[in-house]
């Protein structure tokens, strides 16, 4: 009860004192404002980036491996040129892998080409033609919305059939049934057997402008036998990813005829690699947040300490009077610590408001859904208590230790 009464009183004393030094107090909080704004804005940005990255990357299953000529992440030109000299991966590897692998439930070879799709005067440009097999349905988590996906017989008999992405369907068949209609891709006619549900975009590329056709037809139509094939593999379950990677490496080395000691001339890619690269990127952001944030908080904290030291000196007589009337050392200590925390919380509140504004602006003008949530409040309270106490303790204990008679005599 006593402590509560005294706490309330200390907050009143602090706000009164600050009110009489408005400008000085606001200037003091500037460092805290900058620090808090920086940290919270960057954290909000990182959270926004995480959300959008996770949303995009979710199209790549955690239980899918990709055998490619190139690794997904190449950091230099020299690296790129060394990979370019590798032998291409032929389409038939996909069929061999399917036979040999015990941990894979679907294996899809894929070849890509950008073409224009046409139907009766309507056209859709920049369509991504994917030559593949029936397993692609599983490896790419695809669901047909209308009709069906490519079947094994379509692929075996090299039928000229296609499955449209949602946007291609919308562009070519705005108000008619596409099933059974023949569209033109690269000068050749393909019968539409199905439409894939809407999938959205991944890293800026729409996945709804894809068109899937049997791989054999792709090879004969687009004449790209020299191109390397990417093989998508769905593993029986996500826990088997590591085992599957080992198994597939062995199979690939055998197919390639690599001798022990020779380097792999292919890469096995997976979602977690993108995740790792992304994490490295956000770690840099974190470092900036922590760097800029802690420097400005340090500067802000020293500012608070300075202003409190001035305040203690100016109010020496007041401290003397309070002590003469019965204030104990820790009552005075608490009074100045609370004053420190009140100044600090002004800075934190202004900083949070700025950060909210910046996050709103970012969310409105960029695709990053930066947002500030309840955790900000906890972070803010944490800042107030740590900075307030850390930088307030020295001036406050200086005030608390004052001898009443010396303080009263102070001019």
């Amino acid at each position, binding site marked *: 009860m006593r402590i509560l009464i005294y706490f309330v009183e200390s907050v009143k004393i602090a706000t009164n004192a600050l009110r009489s030094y408005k400008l000085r107090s606001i200037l003091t909080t500037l460092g805290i404002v900058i620090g808090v704004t920086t940290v919270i804005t960057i954290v909000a940005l990182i959270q926004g980036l995480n959300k959008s990255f996770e949303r995009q990357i979710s199209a790549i299953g955690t239980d899918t491996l990709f055998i490619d000529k190139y690794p997904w992440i190449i950091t230099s030109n020299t690296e790129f040129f060394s990979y370019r000299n590798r032998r291409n991966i032929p389409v038939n590897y996909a069929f061999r892998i399917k036979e040999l692998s015990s941990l894979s439930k679907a294996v899809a070879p894929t070849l890509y080409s950008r073409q224009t799709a046409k139907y009766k005067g309507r056209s859709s440009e920049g369509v991504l033609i994917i030559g593949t097999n029936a397993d692609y349905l599983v490896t790419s988590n695809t669901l047909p919305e209308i009709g069906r996906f490519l079947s094994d017989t379509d692929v075996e008999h090299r039928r000229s059939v296609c499955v449209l992405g949602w946007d291609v369907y919308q562009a070519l068949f705005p108000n008619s049934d596409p099933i059974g209609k023949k569209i033109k891709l690269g000068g050749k006619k393909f019968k539409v057997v199905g439409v894939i549900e809407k999938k959205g975009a991944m890293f800026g590329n729409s996945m709804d402008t894809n068109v899937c056709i049997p791989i054999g037809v792709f090879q004969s139509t687009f004449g790209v036998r020299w191109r390397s094939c990417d093989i998508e593999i769905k593993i029986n379950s996500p826990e088997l990813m590591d085992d599957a990677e080992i198994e597939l490496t062995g199979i690939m080395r055998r197919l390639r005829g690599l001798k022990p000691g020779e380097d792999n001339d292919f890469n096995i890619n997976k979602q977690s690699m993108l995740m790792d690269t992304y994490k490295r990127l956000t770690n840099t952001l974190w470092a900036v947040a922590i760097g800029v944030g802690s420097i400005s908080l340090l500067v802000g904290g020293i500012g608070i300490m300075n202003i409190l030291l001035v305040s203690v000196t100016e109010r020496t007589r007041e401290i003397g009077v309070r002590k003469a*009337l019965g204030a104990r050392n820790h009552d005075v200590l608490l009074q100045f610590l609370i004053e420190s925390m009140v100044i600090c919380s002004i800075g934190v509140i202004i900083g949070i408001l700025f950060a909210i504004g910046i996050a709103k602006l970012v969310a409105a003008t960029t695709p990053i859904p930066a947002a500030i949530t309840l955790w900000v409040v906890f972070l803010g309270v944490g800042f107030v208590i740590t900075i307030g106490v850390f930088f307030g303790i020295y001036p406050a204990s200086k005030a608390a230790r004052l001898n009443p008679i010396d303080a009263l005599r102070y001019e």
Partner: protein
Amino acid sequence: MLIDLKDIKKIYEIGGTVKVPALKSINLVIGKNEYVAIMGPSGSGKSTLMNILGCLDTASEGIYMLNGSNVSDMTDDELAEIRNREIGFVFQTFNLLPRANALHNVELPLIYNGTSSTQRKKQAKEALEKVGLADRMDHKPNELSGGQRQRVAIARALVNNPSIILADEPTGNLDSKTGEEIMEIFETLHDAGNTIVLVTHEEYIAEHSDRIIRLRDGLVERDESVN
């Protein structure tokens, strides 16, 4: 007895080398409901003695018993509690908080013993009524005259019903007419049962008391009753 000083000495050390013996050996007993005036030339140790009596300062040597407890070996916090509970101090320079109004200034001692806000306001108003300032509660010190300020200070000193009221030259900064008014308040407080010790160097002020203690060079020169 309320106050019992045994062989109290106070030596100020200046810069660690020069020693000023302000009180040489004070032996003094003051009982309940006494009204004592301390007199003496400037520098004789009056303020030093008052500060020790008021537990604002501690003696270099000797034993000080206040209301049955030995104050000489108390900690800072214990002394703060004694100041809060047992002592009402009135200063020559008033020592009011300039930014707080009269009511809040009088409330201060009650904040440090955990009295609730409503109870504080009630007691502070009663104390201000006793010194005739009920109509000046909302005024800040710079909106009050010297005499009024000292009356606020007296209200503050008695708000917590202390065992003893100590006043170091309470009229020193006031003109003689206002000084008389302040002395009337002390007289009323004494009549109401309060114990009062005050320092003055005006004979006519000391006349109000029942007993005059004269100090010289840190020693009690004379201790006599007033008829």
